[in-house]
């Protein structure tokens, strides 16, 4: 190892100080001030780092040792003890494979006791001292003690490299043991807990733990002093306090002088971000993914915490108890397999790096999945409706998982009287013909949970909602079923609902992508089947919107319209009119809003648009459609690029037209090109390249049409090309 001018630690500290002082910006957020404790505690809390050791370098050869040529030794100037001894790996003594490294290390300690400046028996006997740091590195760490009392932060460490043949070589000794201990006052009386709390100035705190130490400190001359001190853990006296985030503190207090040696708040620098696994649709599709675990209670030792909307909490430890109910939670889970009156709870180990992913296997998967599914659909709906509009968002809902009523196996339901969701445990259902089917726990089928939550939501929306004293869901039961299926489809962005209800059966229970038509003369009396007429209409609307605006914006608009129309409508037979009204800005845009054609076309296909019908020439505006001249070849000949939200293809025809046939004069097709990030790049738009040249001198007006995957015109835009008055250069 090369000689260094300053110790590594010192170099690091200086650089960091320099950097921070040179670019500290007063606008940066400041560390939150700590509100508790005496001035002495505050001062020590402000010191984040341990004091530095004064280190000097001494050439190994000056020690006149055997095989010393390969050694580099630095000395702790505070004690004159050897601080770090490094050995050239290949010159160090070869230690046979299988050697007891603890015993070997103790042997070295005895051999160099004088240089390391403490006696071999001044170490704690600890079998865990051996650490397999890496595949080829072993470390032995002995904690330093004096008269049986641990010297705080004092240890000696041995580093062994494992050679290819399994033998070891000692490569480094780090002696962080502070040299000979001499206690200034070895009979200072022990502190009482009350004294310690008074010194720290912590009101409403209590001592949870205490431990005696010998505390080294550095004198102004750079030597070490030692004194008896006690380390206290202070925790809030009232553990139920949750209105603020109570900190616990670790404080080392000198027994003789009552000075605070060191203090720090017991809080990780980083928040814990807790995510949990759940099925987007169903266990049978194995479509599980992680998302934040919001608003659950976490018990961290005596500390009661709650995760926030992002699943974050200031957790001290890594062992926590999760309860699937928090004060802000929109869901509370009762696992009937465990208890019918206590919220579901499970133990979890959080990751020390602050990012924890809890798997479905952390507990009964149907229990965690139900919580997460409720949160997923609630989070979606909360983007569009306020808590005033939909109190369910705030009050939450109780979900009973592993329901054990044999009459309701293979079922999930919303109980409007108890206002809870019921998810059956795994069981079987027997049909009228005597055949039976086995079912999984419905808590594993997220689609079912979204659907049932949709019923609870439906009850609270609309002019005759349950909050106004009206009966539950009763206005139109088929509409209610269609609403539940549509909400599920919008949540998962898939049309299928309920895969996996029957064990091993991946077929969906229902599908919103359908051709069900309303026929007044032939109404299916099963409300679930009848509900397909509405869900089918709305899924077509969703498809039209995503084809025009792209998936993100289209799904956003469809979900918004779905929830808005539920606030003004009570029957699926009038849903179309309500949607047209919503689209028109409640009439602000006239009788027809910007999406009139696409809404009408969707509902018309299911015979739900009443007397309104649209023909092929009803085409909504595509506001997302834009073009850019890629090359102006002169004389009005332009190569164009286009951009739009979701069109599968764009076609263009000269003039302000509604018909644009491939056989027509001047017809140009524009096909999707992948944004290369250089010429085109967007998170929301697609790009298209023209397969022909536009002649804007001959045709100063072009109509552009956005087509969906079936070639239906879902949007259009007419553009005027105007010659500039003055033409520079080319």
């Amino acid at each position: 190892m090369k000689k260094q001018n300053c110790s590594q630690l010192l170099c690091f500290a200086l650089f960091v100080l320099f950097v921070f002082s040179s670019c500290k910006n007063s606008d940066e957020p400041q560390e939150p001030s700590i509100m508790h404790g005496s001035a002495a505690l505050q001062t020590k809390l402000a010191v984040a780092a341990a004091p530095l050791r004064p280190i000097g370098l001494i050439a190994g050869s000056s020690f006149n040792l055997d095989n010393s040529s390969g050694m580099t030794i630095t000395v702790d100037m505070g004690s004159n003890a050897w601080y770090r001894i490094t050995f050239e790996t290949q010159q160090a003594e070869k230690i046979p494979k299988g050697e007891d490294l603890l015993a070997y290390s103790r042997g070295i300690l005895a051999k160099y006791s004088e240089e390391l400046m403490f006696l071999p028996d001044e170490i704690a006997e600890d079998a865990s001292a051996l650490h397999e740091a890496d595949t080829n590195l072993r470390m032995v760490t002995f904690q330093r003690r004096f008269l049986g009392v641990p010297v705080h932060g004092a240890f000696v460490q041995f580093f062994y490299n494992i050679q290819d043949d399994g033998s070891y070589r000692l490569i480094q000794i780090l002696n962080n043991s502070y040299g000979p201990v001499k206690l200034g006052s070895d009979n200072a009386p022990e502190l009482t807990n009350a004294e310690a709390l008074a010194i720290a100035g912590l009101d409403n705190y209590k001592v949870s733990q205490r431990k005696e130490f010998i505390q080294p400190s550095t004198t102004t001359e750079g030597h070490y002093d030692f004194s008896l001190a006690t380390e206290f853990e202070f925790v809030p006296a009232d553990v139920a306090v949750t209105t603020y985030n109570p900190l616990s503190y670790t404080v080392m207090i000198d027994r003789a002088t009552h000075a605070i040696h060191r203090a720090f708040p017991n809080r990780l620098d980083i928040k814990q971000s807790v995510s949990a696994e759940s099925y987007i649709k169903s266990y049978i599709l194995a479509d599980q993914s992680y998302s934040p675990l919001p608003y659950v209670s976490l018990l961290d030792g005596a500390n009661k915490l709650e995760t926030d909307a992002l699943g974050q909490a200031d957790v001290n430890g890594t062992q926590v108890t999760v309860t699937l109910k928090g004060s802000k939670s929109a869901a509370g889970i009762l696992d009937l397999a465990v208890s019918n009156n206590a919220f579901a709870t499970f133990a979890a180990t959080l990751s020390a790096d602050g990012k924890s992913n809890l798997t479905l296997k952390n507990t009964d998967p149907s229990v965690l999945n139900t919580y997460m599914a409720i949160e997923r659909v609630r989070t979606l709906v909360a983007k569009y409706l306020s808590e005033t509009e939909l109190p369910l968002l705030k009050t939450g809902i109780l979900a009973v998982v592993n329901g054990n009523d044999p009459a309701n196996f293979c079922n999930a339901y919303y109980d409007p009287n108890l206002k809870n969701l019921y998810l059956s445990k795994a069981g079987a259902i027997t049909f009228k013909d005597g055949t039976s089917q086995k079912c999984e726990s419905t808590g594993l089928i997220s689609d079912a949970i979204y659907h049932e939550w949709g019923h609870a939501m439906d009850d609270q929306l609309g002019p005759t909602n349950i909050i106004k004293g009206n009966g539950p869901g009763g206005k139109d039961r088929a509409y209610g079923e269609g609403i539940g299926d549509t909400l599920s489809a919008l949540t998962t962005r898939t049309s299928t609902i309920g895969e996996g209800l029957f064990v091993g059966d991946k077929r969906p229970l229902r599908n919103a992508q359908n051709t069900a038509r309303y026929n007044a003369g032939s109404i299916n009396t099963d409300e679930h089947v009848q509900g397909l007429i509405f869900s089918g209409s709305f899924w077509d609307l969703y498809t039209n919107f995503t084809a025009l605006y792209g998936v993100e914006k289209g799904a956003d608009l469809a979900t918004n319209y779905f929830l808005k129309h539920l606030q003004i409508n009570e029957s699926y037979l009038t849903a179309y009119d309500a949607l047209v009204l919503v689209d028109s800005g409640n009439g602000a845009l006239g009788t027809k809003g910007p999406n009139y054609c696409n809404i009408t076309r969707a509902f018309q296909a299911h015979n739900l648009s009443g007397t309104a019908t649209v023909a092929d020439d009803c085409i909504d505006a595509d506001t997302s459609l834009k073009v850019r001249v890629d090359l102006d070849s002169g004389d009005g000949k332009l190569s164009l690029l286009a951009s739009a939200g979701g069109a599968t293809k764009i076609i263009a025809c000269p003039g302000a037209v509604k018909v644009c046939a491939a056989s027509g004069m001047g017809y140009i097709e524009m096909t999707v090109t992948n944004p290369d990030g250089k010429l085109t790049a967007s998170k929301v738009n697609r790009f298209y390249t023209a397969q022909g040249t536009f002649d804007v001198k001959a045709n100063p007006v072009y109509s552009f049409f956005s087509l969906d995957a079936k070639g239906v015109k879902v949007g259009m835009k007419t553009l005027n090309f105007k010659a500039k008055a003055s033409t520079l250069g080319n």
Partner: protein
Amino acid sequence: MRLIFITTLIVAGLSAGCEKYQSGFKLSRSGDVSAATAGQPSHVANVPVTSASAVEIQLLSSKLVGSESKYKSVAKFGGVASAKSILSALSSGVSFKVDTLPTGAKPDVLTIEIYDGDQLKFIAKQANTKLSKAGSVVINDCAILQVPWDGAASDGSCHWTIEEAK
């Protein structure tokens, strides 16, 4: 040694985040190649084209004024691309010289790409362009388009504007 290395990296990272340091040089606006060369940071390996027969390409764009130390340009013509060239200052834009493109040939599309490091920042395409030895080509501001295009708005050309019909 390992710790030292990590330390250095952290310090370098923090320093970069500060952005207090500004390069001290200012370029003259004379448009003379040697002045621009003097202004180049030492790590720029490219040397200006000095061949007497080189074609000068002028980019008359206020958005490129003062960008000589930042951007480099590539010209493409007749299926040939020039090396990345450094820019010289003009009173109302920048210019650069290329001597590897076919001259005297039939007119073609001249494509200019302006890079910040490896990142393409602007593109200009000019149709029906002819290059001649020791000649110069002028590209106007209206032809110099920022890239990548995000599709948020329509963009016309030097001769045509695009308007949405009411």
